[in-house]
């Protein structure tokens, strides 16, 4: 599940709830459930949102009970130390490697989709083409700074990807 929403007028939890209610597929990455500094609490938004979403399988009605879940973590059995209740469910490890995460995600989507979808290798190639074009357009043509790109709202980023894909030749 992508919990990156931007409308500041609506409390974050309501935006997340709306996403959960409308999503057929739920993808949760709990790899950042770790200490950022010694003696500091870890961030627990992601496992909290996973638990909330998981509740739809138990307490939800209709389509909510049929949601598909993909849970990603950095290592295969790491979650058992913190969320042992997840034992028995599939938690896919990505080793903090974007390519492996993409492969896990692609294979999971492919197994739940009748259409044949591109290989992870091809998707990675297309992603590199997008990041190259994105850099060229925003920095070279539009005068953005690296910092501005890093702080770009997620909704803008998604919009640019959609526009970029619009007339792109399929190969």
């Amino acid at each position, binding site marked *: 599940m992508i919990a990156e929403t931007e409308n500041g007028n609506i409390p974050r939890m309501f935006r997340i709830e709306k996403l959960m209610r409308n999503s057929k597929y739920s993808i949760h990455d709990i790899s950042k459930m770790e200490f950022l500094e010694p003696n500091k609490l870890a961030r627990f938004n992601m496992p909290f949102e996973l638990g909330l979403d998981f509740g739809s399988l138990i307490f939800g009605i209709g389509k909510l009970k049929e949601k598909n879940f993909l849970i990603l973590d950095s290592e295969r059995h790491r979650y058992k130390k913190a969320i042992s209740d997840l034992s028995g469910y599939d938690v896919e490890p990505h080793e903090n490697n*974007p*390519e492996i995460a993409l492969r896990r995600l692609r294979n999971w989507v492919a197994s739940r989709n009748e259409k044949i979808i591109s290989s992870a*290798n*091809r998707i*990675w*190639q297309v*992603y*590199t*083409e997008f*990041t*190259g*074009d*994105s*850099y*060229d*357009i*925003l*920095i*070279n*043509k*539009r005068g953005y700074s690296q910092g501005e790109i890093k702080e770009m709202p997620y909704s803008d980023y998604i*919009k*640019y*990807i959609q*526009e*970029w*894909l*619009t*007339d*792109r*030749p399929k*190969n």
Partner: protein
Amino acid sequence: MTRATVKAIEKDFRNAGPTGNKLHVFHRSGRWVLLKEGASRASSIHDSKAAAITKAKALFDLHKSEALVIHQPDGSIENFITV
């Protein structure tokens, strides 16, 4: 940012895909790949990033590419070289 600027940027993105003509050096499964934009197969695959960049620079003029894009292992841009 004005609505007109946002629309102009969206148009830039919409037109970028089909007209792209860049060479990319990026990480793939522990190796470094040289890819011409739009191609479905890699031009060459190298054990080191330096070797991939050397090869890319040699092919830069040959392919009449508009830019050579060097990526970080996470796919983000490390360097963008134009003619």
